[in-house]
């Protein structure tokens, strides 16, 4: 016979149906808006295949070099830099270097027209760091990479587009008129995964990207260091700094020095998408996000607060009775908060579902560039959006909204004069 909060919440809502409907709708809309922002933000941070290891990797997307005259070069790394620093690292579980940026190529098979697609040059470590699902075949090996083998892993959509089938391992294709052999077919990769995404992956040792560099250190490569555990980040950074310092000694002879900008970055920092010439300002980014959240919370909370007050007006007699029979003020306030929390959770669940549907339907408008010409479907699936963290955020914001909208009314209700409450005043 302990207080049945669910029933009480329901009855309290039934007492003023219009106010309750508006109140639930307000909460739903607030949580919907907030969760859209959360999910748009989470897409860049939360792990999902094939970037499943985001939580334990450090990213070196860009490199910055300063010259004697204080001018700077900012961009990706050359193969020489990758070899001197990234491939020398022993602390990470795996390291990968890959070409970063647009690399549109033409792919064809004899007797068919050529198809344009996105290609990424990768090393053998790429397949350890990323979490691809191979539908057929396997990736190229380290030995094959080192030999500059002309093998290619292609996406499911790519396979269907050029062969009308996915059972094509061992078949030959031409990439920019160079013959390659298909060694594996993987599930399509979303454009939202900036490091893994492509339609076709080849060993960069088989391309001319190795020799493409300027000022000795800059080139087309980015790298990711996969830690065995997040706790190893500090040790990885120390090793990274040591190796860059060593390379820096050599660069200093030519009047160049490396500018760290706090690299390498965790995925959270990387997701800020700072330019290669900028140091990501995590604090500013977080503050901006929370200001947005607060605005999205405060406006409905103020409105919902008056509705909660209105609903509590109906319960004054009950509060009076409970106070008369010895229920302390804090218990009254807690009970009101719990009842309202149930309503907030109910409305929040609807808001969360609506936000998921919205992002799945319209998310690509916000997240995928209109210029995207990849063959992979641009739709966003629920697996990308829905993690325990998303659920956690939704719960947190329901709780905050509840506290902001019911906190003051519950405090006031708990301090109600018992006699007046019993009289329904």
């Amino acid at each position, binding site marked *: 016979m*302990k207080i049945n909060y669910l029933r009480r919440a329901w009855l309290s809502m039934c007492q003023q149906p219009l106010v309750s409907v508006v109140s639930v709708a307000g909460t739903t809309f607030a949580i919907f808006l907030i969760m859209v922002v959360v999910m748009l933000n989470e897409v860049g941070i939360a792990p999902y295949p094939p970037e499943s290891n985001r939580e334990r990797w450090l990213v070196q997307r860009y490199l910055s070099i300063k010259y004697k005259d204080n001018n700077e070069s900012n961009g990706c790394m050359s193969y020489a830099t990758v070899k001197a620093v990234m491939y020398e690292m022993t602390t990470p579980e795996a390291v990968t270097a890959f070409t970063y940026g647009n690399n549109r190529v033409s792919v064809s098979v004899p007797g068919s027209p050529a198809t344009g697609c996105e290609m990424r040059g990768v090393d053998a470590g790429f397949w350890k760091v990323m979490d691809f699902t191979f539908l057929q075949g396997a990736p190229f090996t380290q030995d094959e990479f080192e030999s500059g083998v002309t093998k290619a892993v292609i996406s499911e959509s790519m396979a269907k587009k050029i062969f009308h089938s996915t059972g094509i391992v061992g078949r030959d294709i031409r990439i920019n008129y160079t013959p390659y052999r298909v060694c594996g077919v993987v599930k399509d990769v979303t454009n939202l995964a900036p490091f893994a995404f492509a339609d076709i992956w080849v060993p960069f040792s088989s391309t001319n990207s190795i020799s493409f560099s300027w000022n000795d250190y800059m080139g087309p490569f980015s790298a990711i260091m996969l830690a065995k555990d997040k706790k190893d980040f500090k040790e990885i950074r120390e090793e990274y700094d040591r190796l860059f310092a060593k390379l820096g000694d050599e660069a200093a002879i030519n009047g160049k020095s490396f500018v760290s900008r706090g690299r390498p970055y965790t995925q959270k920092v990387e997701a800020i998408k700072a330019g290669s010439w900028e140091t990501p300002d995590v604090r500013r980014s977080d503050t901006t996000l929370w200001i947005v959240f607060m605005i999205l919370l405060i406006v409905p909370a103020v409105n919902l607060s008056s509705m909660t007050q209105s609903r509590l007006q109906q319960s004054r007699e009950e509060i009076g009775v409970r106070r008369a*029979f010895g229920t*302390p003020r804090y218990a009254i306030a807690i009970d009101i908060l719990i009842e309202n929390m149930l309503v907030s959770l109910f409305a929040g669940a609807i808001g969360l579902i609506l936000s998921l549907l919205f992002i799945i339907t319209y998310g690509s408008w916000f997240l995928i560039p209109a210029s995207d010409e990849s063959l992979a479907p641009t739709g966003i699936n629920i697996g990308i959006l829905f993690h325990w963290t998303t659920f956690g955020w939704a719960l947190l914001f329901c709780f905050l909204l509840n506290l902001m909208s019911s906190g003051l009314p519950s405090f006031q209700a708990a301090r109600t004069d018992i006699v007046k409450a019993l009289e329904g005043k």
Partner: protein
Amino acid sequence: MLQTVTSSDVNRSSAEPAIKLEGIGKIYRTDEIETEALENVNLSISKGEFVSIMGPSGCGKSTLLNIMGLLDRPSSGTIRIDGKSPENMSDRQLSAFRSEKIGFVFQNFHLIKSLDVGGNVEIPILYRSMNARQRSERVKEVLTRVDLLHRIHHFPSQLSGGQCQRVAIARAIAGDPEIILADEPTGNLDSKMGAEVMDILRSLNRHEGRTIVMVTHNERQAAQSDRIIRFFDGRRVM
């Protein structure tokens, strides 16, 4: 202006009185008006006594009952319940003290519509150090006493007025208080149901020794109590 008539009440037992009021005054203030609801009320009610308070509407009976029940604070004077002054108690202490010492029966029952009979009766013991089973047993015990155990899962809207008041009495005694304050407990009932409620109150007084203070307009019911205290314009006149 009439002076308050103060009589030295007879202590019916050698122990502390159940309720002792000394110089109680109550003034309701608004921005423009001051209304004196009670003026220098002195009263002692012994343990186990059944007292009726009578007087015309607006004479301060209910205000007095609210002050006795620690639901309201007097503007002046002191109150002692079972020898203890609630003056310096925190809200938590006062709530616990009220729950332990005092039960209320209201004219319009004040049952919570969203709770079933069992839930309503359980309210005074919800914050006691009792587990769910002990609370459940206590609820059944008091509902048996008012002959409503079979209605334990019914809601107030499914009960008659008399049954509602019996539930209210069960709720008033659930916490086993020494004092029951009844504000016109039969005011909303027909004579038959009113008689039933009076029987229960009398039984609680005679057989269980509970102190009962009842506000009533009904002379016949008041005559069933040990003592009648009459009020007029916020002052005790007899």
